[in-house]
């Protein structure tokens, strides 16, 4: 490496932007060349002078910018979240969509689900076409036909009374009681968690007591965290209700999913809203502050709420 090559690369050397081979060669040259060492000292000096002569950022300017931005974003229309379903699903499963390996895993999951659904549909086609006892037996195995009664009819024969599950569609508004009852029944009884989530979502904003009842049950007892989260979202409309408050406190204290606990806190004491705490809420929060060791967010949020609380009653 020549002195000229070394001296023209000194800045990149100081920034650490040379490739390893060039850096090694440059260091070797520097160790043996006083002229280049002097050039390095000069390089460091003008770098330092750049930093020393730089005007400080006026703090008032920064504060003013923040105020202006705050005012401007407040006047902006709220943009609808554009986080696609698959990313929200990934987030729910605790999978990051930032890394390709995890994206691939997620894609495989969806592919697997797609194949599964396709396979199920194929089976459904077979069932819908059954015409003989053999087909019926197959259909029974698939759960499309339920045997309600069995009896002997002589000559070594038996009679089976069957319930065939048939597809049908109902259309109506959410104010229609029949529609609402079907949805409520789905939330209570369906084994499909996705269907339960969708049903809860449809019932959001309905203020009937039976809706609240089912939401409370789902928020506290549903085995699936996504359903519990969705039910909590639905309970926002009822948060001033005493029974709802008690259920929310129970979720905050005992749910095993920290996301669910966090959402329950948000429903009970929304961020940025000034609230006054009822004694039972304050007591529960104090207990959490004392005893919660695993979830920093829950503990700190409780602490924050307690610090900002001013009276003894909620709302």
């Amino acid at each position, binding site marked *: 490496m020549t002195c000229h090559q070394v001296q023209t690369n000194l800045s990149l050397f100081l920034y650490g932007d040379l490739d390893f081979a060039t850096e090694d060669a440059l260091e070797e040259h520097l160790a043996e060349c006083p002229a280049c060492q002097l050039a390095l000292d000069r390089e460091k000096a003008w770098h330092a002078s750049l930093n*020393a002569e730089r005007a400080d950022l006026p703090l008032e300017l920064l504060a003013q910018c923040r105020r202006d931005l*705050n005012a401007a974003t407040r006047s902006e229309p709220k943009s609808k979240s554009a986080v696609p379903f698959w990313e929200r699903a990934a987030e729910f499963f605790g999978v990051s969509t930032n890394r390709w390996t995890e994206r691939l895993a997620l894609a495989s999951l969806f592919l697997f689900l797609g194949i599964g659904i396709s396979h199920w549909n194929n089976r459904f086609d077979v069932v819908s076409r059954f015409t003989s006892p053999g087909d019926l037996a197959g259909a029974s195995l698939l759960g499309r036909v339920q045997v309600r009664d069995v009896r002997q009819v002589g000559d070594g024969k038996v009679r089976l009374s069957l319930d065939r599950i048939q597809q049908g569609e109902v259309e109506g508004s959410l104010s229609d009681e029949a529609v609402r009852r079907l949805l409520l029944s789905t939330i209570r009884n369906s084994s499909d968690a996705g269907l339960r989530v969708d049903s809860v979502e449809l019932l959001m904003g309905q203020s009937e007591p039976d809706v609240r009842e089912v939401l409370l049950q789902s928020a506290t007892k549903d085995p699936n965290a996504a359903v519990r989260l969705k039910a909590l979202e639905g309970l926002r409309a009822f948060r001033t209700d005493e029974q709802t408050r008690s259920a929310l406190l129970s979720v905050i204290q005992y749910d095993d999913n920290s996301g669910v606990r966090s959402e329950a806190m948000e429903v009970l004491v929304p961020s940025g809203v000034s609230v006054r705490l009822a004694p039972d809420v304050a007591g529960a929060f104090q207990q959490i502050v004392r005893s919660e060791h695993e979830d920093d967010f829950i503990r700190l949020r409780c602490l924050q709420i307690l610090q900002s609380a001013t009276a003894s009653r909620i709302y």
Partner: protein
Amino acid sequence: MDTRVQAIENIGVGSATGRLDETALIRAAQKGDSEAFESLVRTYDANVLRMAHNLLRSEEDARDIYQEAFLRVYRNLPKFRFDCSFSTWLYRIVANLCLDQIRKRKVRKEEPSAMETGTGELNRFDLVPEARADVDPQRQLLSAEVNARIQSVLDQLTPRERLVFELRHYQGLRLRAIGEALGVTEEAAKNCLFRATQKMRSALGEFV
């Protein structure tokens, strides 16, 4: 969850809450969490403003760049897909805004040695810190001269060289990130930095 922990840290309730998870913060902001958005802004805004102020040497222009950059972030955050880091995306926005502004100035042939402030125009020599009784007057004079020389040589850089130099020297961005922010290769950013430092060395190397 971490987003809210960070928000709590910001208001001073707790401190032992672990480090900021920027991804969670972005996701929360994408869902409309204004506290998360504010935390994101506060992570970067001093650097953004400093960069705009240093490049444009006008408080008014720096304020405009700040406002426009973060409003663009606010409007487009829901579409941010994590294809690059948030800081790269932000610096790309700021860099483009600054480049546009510098080019506009070149067209208008603005006098670069004077800088605008909230209270009127200020000569670059006035940027030198106030004289202190214990400071050698000769040293102060030298400092003013160095400062003037620095501004002069910075003005001689092309807008892109200026920007690359600002991002590398003052903002500490890696060349790869600079390349991503400017939409060029890492090698192109390196060449640009090389040219900028050559010019700086020629003007300042013997002077300091």
